[in-house]
């Protein structure tokens, strides 16, 4: 709207929006704050907002008692590994679909997306069985493969949309300039697609990090990532809110930061282009 908005109106919008935003964000904020309290103060009534004895003891306890770092490392490897593997498989596929489309391209793309809609419970037991047979149960490798497979449709899809935005004529110019297919992809396509590839990496790392079905059912002590580790807090003993908060904060902090950068990618990646 090109008309000048009254300052009053803007102030009202701001107040309302901030109120709603803070309300929605409150659980996260509270968790972060609680992570710095003692267990006793964590359950204090009335609840203590800012004025309590700030302490870092929870963070060290969580690490000592349960070797938090190992779970963190598992999450990193599984999320990172699956995303990178996915990109390696997806780049050629997305290239061919974007630049050499055939009559079946659209159908293949839709089919790939539909595999993401497969309910995990429907294939839980066979995968479980296969994993036992192949010795993949409770291994980071096994979980990485699964994460790659469930995110592959989204990775292919996102790369496809980014590649389509590269003007075809530029690639043709490269061809006229004497570039072989490999040279075309290496010197022209990839540099131009780097922002798109980075965005895809980011979003899918987040999705793999947060996945909470396969990571809970296919892991035990060795390969459990953070999702499973946190789940173990569901029936603890004694006071634990502060420790839960500390563990949770550490688990979600990196992703919250990454998430901020990937808002646009979220829309692109998860609505499959149906919303622009």
């Amino acid at each position: 709207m090109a008309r000048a908005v009254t300052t009053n109106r803007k102030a009202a919008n701001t107040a309302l929006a901030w109120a709603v935003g803070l309300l929605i964000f409150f659980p996260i904020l509270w968790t972060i704050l609680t992570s710095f309290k003692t267990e006793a103060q964590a359950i204090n009534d009335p609840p203590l907002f800012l004025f309590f004895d700030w302490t870092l003891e929870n963070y060290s306890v969580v690490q000592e008692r349960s070797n938090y770092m190992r779970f963190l490392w598992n999450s990193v490897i599984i999320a990172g590994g699956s995303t990178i593997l996915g990109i390696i498989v997806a780049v050629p596929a997305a290239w061919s679909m974007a630049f050499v489309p055939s009559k079946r391209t659209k159908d293949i793309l839709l089919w790939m997306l539909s595999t993401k809609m497969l309910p995990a419970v429907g294939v839980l037991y066979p995968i479980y069985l296969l994993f036992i047979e192949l010795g993949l149960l409770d291994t980071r490798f096994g979980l990485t493969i699964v994460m790659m497979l469930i995110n592959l449709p989204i990775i292919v899809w996102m790369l496809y949309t980014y590649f389509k935005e590269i003007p075809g004529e530029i690639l043709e110019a490269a061809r006229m300039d004497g570039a072989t297919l490999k040279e075309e992809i290496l010197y022209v396509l990839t540099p131009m697609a780097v922002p798109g590839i980075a965005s895809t990496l980011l979003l899918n790392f987040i999705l793999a990090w947060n996945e909470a079905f396969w990571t809970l059912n296919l892991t035990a002590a060795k390969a459990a990532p953070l999702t499973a580790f946190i789940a173990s807090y569901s029936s603890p003993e004694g006071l634990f809110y502060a420790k839960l908060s500390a563990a949770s904060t550490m688990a979600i902090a990196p992703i919250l930061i990454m998430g901020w950068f990937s808002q646009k990618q979220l829309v692109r990646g998860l609505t499959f282009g149906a919303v622009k």
Partner: protein
Amino acid sequence: MATQSSRSAARIMMAPAVILLLGWMLVPLTMTLWFSFRKYLPLRGGDLGWVGFDNYVRFVSSSSFWPSVQTTLIIVGGVLVITVTFGVLLAMLLDQPMWGQGIVRILVIAPFFVMPTVSALVWKNIFMDPVNGLFAHLWKFFGATPVEWLSQASLQSIIMIVSWQWLPFATLILLTAIQSLDGEQLEASEMDGANIFQRFGYVILPHLARAITIVVLIQTIFLLAIFAEIFVTTGGAFGTKTLSYLIFQRVLESQNIGLGSAGGIYAVILANIVAIFLMRIVGKNLDA
């Protein structure tokens, strides 16, 4: 652009992704299908032979079946209603001129990036615990008896937790859609004499209709498969057993593989029905 040499190269380049996904889809699905037609109890004898459609019948005639369908409908329906309604309102609010819009966006988006186990446990313990939770403190402040959320109001609790997680998704999608609305359309309708409610009803809402449909379809597919939130809060008790959770229990807890597999096939069929609608809309947008 498309010459013979590039076409054959293209086919080779697509192969790994297609083969992997084909395998991922076909192999376990076929196995599930196979198991669904057999009586298979690994803890009590293993593969006990072909039973035809017996498992399918037993699954839907079991006493847990219809309650689980009901539970699923309530949870999915509840979350959809909450996220879409508030999503539209929130999206419209965020579209207004204000100060610090970027930060408000971050605040609103954040819950989506919290892993389900964390949000479930934080809500369960820090908010909903009837003794030490914040809600309990709040209720007591007003002199009321704290609610035992997860045992007395279990469905509402789950709906609350899941809605909190998915509201950002709906908001973000709807905000994107609102921002794509041509400002001139609204101006034209204003010149035509429409007041703010009419503009909403006749211009904004129809424009959002498509985005709302997308949000509903995508969320439905993911909501049908909710797992972690139930797993770490109620474990399926207090009437929070959704269809997916029921299947999970049959398979991994009671280890009745045949029965669970039949249930799994039902779930696949259900998801596919929703997916067909979604893919049709997505397909219309693709110009491959």
